[in-house]
């Protein structure tokens, strides 16, 4: 049985129609849909166990804390982290990156450099710009070559003893390029730079093992991996996290507080001030269990088959241009249609019940490299089928001349 046939019935939203047609949801890279088990786990939590975590010495408080910390263990296992203390809950990928940028930012000196790449999502650019602002810090960027892969020779040249941190995406949210994480991390480490990987587009689609990637930080969001919005994860190698002076204060991240000073809590709570998104972690546990049951190798195979099919059938349409590598790509396919603005493509497809993303995909520097103001983008998850890719291609081929 194909993966979509196995999973389709688990996603209630996929039963609905849009503009009189069955929904074809091809926007999972922006946010995936949720299986019933995730929705029910969160509802059950609110109906039976909700209280604040870590502070309440009563049954509900203990149950909530247990569920919250169980989610941490599930994440640790899912990403192959060495210790549960390396898993910090955040509000999302942007928030996870910002936590590091704020903390590192305080230590930056004039002349220091942060290295990014031309394919980054704004979430992995702007926090570094904010951190570098007014500190005399230079932001440099690794250019792209060919079909949209990193220029590794340039990366080698750009990394130097002034580089404090190298921030790059595991998977491009536009090109679908899968970057050689372990190799880039090793290059950064050779010059003494820290590495941060934006894993938002990788965690939902690829088997992961932090002990193989060996990056210092890895950030991702729950809502792109079948889980709820408002929750993300910052993985950090323990010695690096230990050395990270918290840039944000509040409850739960402290041991003792006086009016003018405080001592910090242990990891990971030191980096989790305030009441966290508790129900969302319960939902993430259910999402991880769902993905683990399917098996991430199978998820990868299914989605890469869909991406390969999409590249082939869209490229075969004379008026269509497909961006990114032909092979070895992840489950996102950006494309342009001659004479059509991406917004008009998305609106026309929506009329057929097909949901795709259109615009700059929060990657304006990358759009400049592509030489366009934006693209349309189809992205896939476990519930998408080969038939849906064919429907997309048929609808795109039927667009005809300019709107």
């Amino acid at each position: 049985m194909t993966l979509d046939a196995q999973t389709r019935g688990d996603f209630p939203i996929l039963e609905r129609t849009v503009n009189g047609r069955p929904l074809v949801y091809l926007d999972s890279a922006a946010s995936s849909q949720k299986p019933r088990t995730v929705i029910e786990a969160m509802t059950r939590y609110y109906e039976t166990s909700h209280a604040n975590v870590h502070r309440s010495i009563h049954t509900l408080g203990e149950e909530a804390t247990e569920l919250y910390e169980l989610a941490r263990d599930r994440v640790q296992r899912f990403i192959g982290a060495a210790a549960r203390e390396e898993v910090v809950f955040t509000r999302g990928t942007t928030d996870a990156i910002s936590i590091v940028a704020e903390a590192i930012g305080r230590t930056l000196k004039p002349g220091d450099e942060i290295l990014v790449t031309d394919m980054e999502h704004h979430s992995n650019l702007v926090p570094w710009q904010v951190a570098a602002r007014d500190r005399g810090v230079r932001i440099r960027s690794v250019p792209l070559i060919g079909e949209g892969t990193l220029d590794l020779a340039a990366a080698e040249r750009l990394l130097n003893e002034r580089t404090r941190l190298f921030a790059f995406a595991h998977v491009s949210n536009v090109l679908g390029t899968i970057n050689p994480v372990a190799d880039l991390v090793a290059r950064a480490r050779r010059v003494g730079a820290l590495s941060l990987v934006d894993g938002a587009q990788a965690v939902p689609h690829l088997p992961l093992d932090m002990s193989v990637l060996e990056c210092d930080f890895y950030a991702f969001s729950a809502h792109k991996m079948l889980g709820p919005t408002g929750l993300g994860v910052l993985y950090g190698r323990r010695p690096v996290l230990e050395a990270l002076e918290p840039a944000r204060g509040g409850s739960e991240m402290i041991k003792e507080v006086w009016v003018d000073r405080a001592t910090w809590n242990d990891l990971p709570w030191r980096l989790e001030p305030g009441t966290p998104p508790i129900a969302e972690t319960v939902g993430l546990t259910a999402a991880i269990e769902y993905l683990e049951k399917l098996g991430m190798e199978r998820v990868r195979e299914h989605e890469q088959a869909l991406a390969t099919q999409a590249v082939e059938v869209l490229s075969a349409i004379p008026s269509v241009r497909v961006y990114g590598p032909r092979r070895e790509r992840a489950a996102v396919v950006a494309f342009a249609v001659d004479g059509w603005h991406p917004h008009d493509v998305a609106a026309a497809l929506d009329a057929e019940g097909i949901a795709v993303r259109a615009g700059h995909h929060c990657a304006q520097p990358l759009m400049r490299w592509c030489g366009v103001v934006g693209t349309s983008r189809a992205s896939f998850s476990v519930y998408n089928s080969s038939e849906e890719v064919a429907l997309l291609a048929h609808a795109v081929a039927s667009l005809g001349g300019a709107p």
Partner: protein
Amino acid sequence: MQVKLDGGRVSAARFAGDSCAICTASADVLSEMVEGRSRAEAAALGAGDVLGVLQADVRPTRMRCVTLPITVLAKALG
């Protein structure tokens, strides 16, 4: 957007851009609407005026496509 003023009145308006159909239509309609109006009248035109001419069902997510040329024109007219 380019605007030509003659004695405080808009004598011509043109636009160039890479945009979606709604935004292009809005810019087109707006360029026609401002001709002959005083600077103040032209700057006072809003989304409602353009939509009245467009007669299209524009959803809230696409309203920025309608308002972009209006914002640009207002800037041009200072």
